[in-house]
């Protein structure tokens, strides 16, 4: 039996406003009591159902309280599912307080273990688990995304508006994000001081390993244990991986959304069949390969590029570049191994891009940028700033010309890397003057749009194939993606690139390969301005739109 309690009224002081609790217990007596207790702590009460409910309304609850012994499902199992799928804090309860059981609960990821009979005062503080998780998530995302604080706030709020990203509590989340942003000015991925105490810090290296492991296993078949084994990091626990995987999934789905947005843009732009995956893919592959060669950087796991291209749903190649589009998201993950953008590598990448890009159709490139949802996603994390700059097609052009030069790229990248937020605005602007930039722009805009939407719509789903079928792009959408927008901006520039450098070609493929893209930018950038970490946080940035490189 399950009782869901929804405390929507913030009237009581005891509970933060609107804490939505899902109570799972087979004992009807306890359900009634808990319902009353929780109700007393807030003011509303509803009743619903459980795991199914959670799945149906991914964003519907903030916390789950579950009994350990239930006839239809083991409480620990439920705990695992909830933790992995929805990443909600779960509190276990039981009449049995044996240390072994409590330990088991904690091992499975429970936030707390309450002993029956439960006192009301014990329930009074359960909100702390929700709050704590949100804070950590925000920090996580922040660091992963490397979004600048400002942007984060903006994008964050938008993202959060969507809801699930951080699991409910949008407002709170948004707020937290803001706070987190401020704290993460330096966007230090592994900044321990800004975050949790014993929390594990997912450095780019670690994330790269994670992504590689995921790719190896296959995104669909992935599981924390498998990943953990593959990663072979002794001090890492299954719990760490599980929670990270969850975030990764959310991230990818967000990127996917963005990508979709982008793709739509790109699709538009890429009327050119060459842009088709096959074409672009190969082109990109080549370029990618080249790049990869050049970039001995381990962090670039452009591997995605090559392989992903086909996978990338670039809806038409359009901007999917980011490839990760839908299905491949998982793959993109792997490819994401963007790892740590090595500035040095970036240079080499840049160069390689030039070569490769040349082969690619400029249009494609642009599209890829746009679609490089992948990149975009990553960019999302990255300050959208970059995008902003990108937006100016003209500027891009110039930049693109310079692309071959690492320095230039760097500039571009920086531009692109601008906080997504800023990007977004630009993006919107650009959306309209798509003409200005020419196709690329439109693509970008379009790309962004879809991306934005995708991001917002990403509700923890795996990257959804970019379905940027329609180039229609509504600038607004872009912003939804939050990160997407930023990326888009970059991509717009990509358009420019397309014309100028071979990068474009690169974009195409890159986009598809989520992994590749993210890395690329970094290399290109070399500049520390990007928060590489933020940008490429492998986990977060899967998207690093290849388009960027394109």
């Amino acid at each position, binding site marked *: 039996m399950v009782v869901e309690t929804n405390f929507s009224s913030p009237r009581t002081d005891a509970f933060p406003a609107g804490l939505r609790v899902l109570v799972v217990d087979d004992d*009807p*007596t306890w359900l009634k*009591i808990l319902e*009353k207790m929780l109700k007393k702590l807030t003011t509303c009460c509803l009743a619903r159902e459980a795991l199914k409910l959670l799945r149906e309304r991914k964003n519907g609850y903030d916390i789950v309280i579950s*009994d350990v*012994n239930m006839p239809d499902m083991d409480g620990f199992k439920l705990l695992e599912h909830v933790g992995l799928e929805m990443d909600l804090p779960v509190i276990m309860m*039981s009449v049995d307080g044996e240390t072994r059981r409590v330990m088991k609960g904690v091992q499975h990821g429970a936030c707390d273990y309450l002993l029956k009979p439960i006192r*009301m005062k014990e329930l009074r503080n359960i909100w702390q688990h929700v709050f704590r998780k949100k804070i950590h998530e925000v920090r996580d995302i922040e660091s992963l995304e490397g979004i600048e604080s400002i942007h984060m706030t903006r994008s964050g709020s938008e993202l959060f508006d969507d809801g699930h990203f951080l699991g409910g509590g949008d407002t709170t989340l948004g707020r937290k994000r803001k706070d987190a942003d401020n704290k993460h000015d330096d966007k230090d991925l592994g900044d321990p001081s800004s975050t949790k105490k014993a929390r594990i810090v997912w450095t780019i290296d670690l994330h790269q390993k994670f992504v590689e492991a995921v790719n190896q296993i296959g995104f669909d078949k992935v599981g924390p244990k498998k990943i953990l084994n593959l990663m072979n990091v002794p001090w890492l626990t299954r719990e760490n991986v599980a929670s990270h995987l969850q975030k990764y999934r959310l991230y990818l789905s967000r990127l996917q959304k963005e990508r979709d947005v982008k793709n739509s843009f790109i699709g538009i732009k890429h009327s050119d069949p060459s842009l088709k995956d096959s074409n672009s893919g190969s082109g990109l592959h080549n370029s990618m390969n080249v790049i990869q060669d050049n970039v001995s950087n381990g962090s670039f796991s452009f591997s995605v590029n090559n392989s992903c291209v086909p996978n990338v749903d670039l809806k038409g190649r359009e901007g999917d570049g980011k490839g990760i589009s839908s299905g491949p998201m998982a793959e993109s993950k792997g490819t994401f191994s963007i790892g740590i953008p090595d500035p040095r590598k970036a240079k080499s990448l840049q160069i390689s891009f030039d070569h490769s890009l040349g082969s690619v159709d400029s249009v494609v490139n642009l599209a890829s940028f746009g679609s490089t949802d992948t990149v975009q996603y990553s960019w999302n994390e990255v300050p959208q700033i970059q995008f902003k700059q990108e937006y100016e097609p003209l500027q891009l052009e110039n930049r693109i010309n310079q692309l071959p030069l690492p320095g230039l790229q760097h500039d571009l990248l920086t531009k692109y890397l601008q906080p997504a937020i800023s990007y977004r605005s630009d993006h919107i602007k650009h959306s309209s003057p798509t003409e200005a930039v020419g196709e690329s722009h439109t693509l970008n805009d379009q790309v962004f749009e879809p991306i934005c939407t995708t991001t917002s719509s990403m509700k923890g789903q795996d990257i959804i194939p970019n379905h940027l079928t329609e180039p229609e792009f509504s600038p607004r959408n872009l912003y939804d993606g939050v990160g997407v927008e930023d990326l888009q901006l970059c991509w717009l520039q990509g358009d420019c690139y397309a014309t100028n450098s071979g990068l474009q070609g690169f974009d195409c493929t890159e986009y598809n390969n989520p992994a590749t893209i993210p890395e690329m930018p970094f290399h290109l950038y070399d500049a520390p301005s990007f928060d590489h970490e933020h940008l490429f946080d492998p986990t977060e940035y899967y998207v690093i739109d290849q388009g960027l490189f394109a």
Partner: protein
Amino acid sequence: MDRNPLRRQLQIMRKSFFDQGYLDEQFVQLEELQDEANPNFVEEVVTLYYRDSARLILSIEQALERKPFDFNKLDAHMHQFKGSSSSIGAKKVKAESTQFREYCKSRNREGCTRCFQQLKKEYATLRKKLEAYFQLARQAGPMETACRPK
């Protein structure tokens, strides 16, 4: 003490539950949850408990009739029963449940059977007492909440 004789009687009865160890703190918690919105909350919960636990008692009884004993199953049932009993603060019943589980762990057939009989007795006794209590409470009229501040 309440001036109303019925209420006084009620209070005495209630006190005896605690003094004699039939009920524990949890019961007080339930009482605290009772309010104007749910004036009969405690009674409702107790009724729910008895309805649900009767089912468990029956399952255990059936399991005890089977030979050989499935101790794991018995333990599982009893665990559930114990959890349920803790919800209303049925102290003695809970103690018997714990004892029963101990016997299950040590695979003590005799112990289980004996213990269960004892448990059933306590269970029935408490039920009777609570029923009388609530009946009296209804007669005395809504008072708990009203008198509580005193």
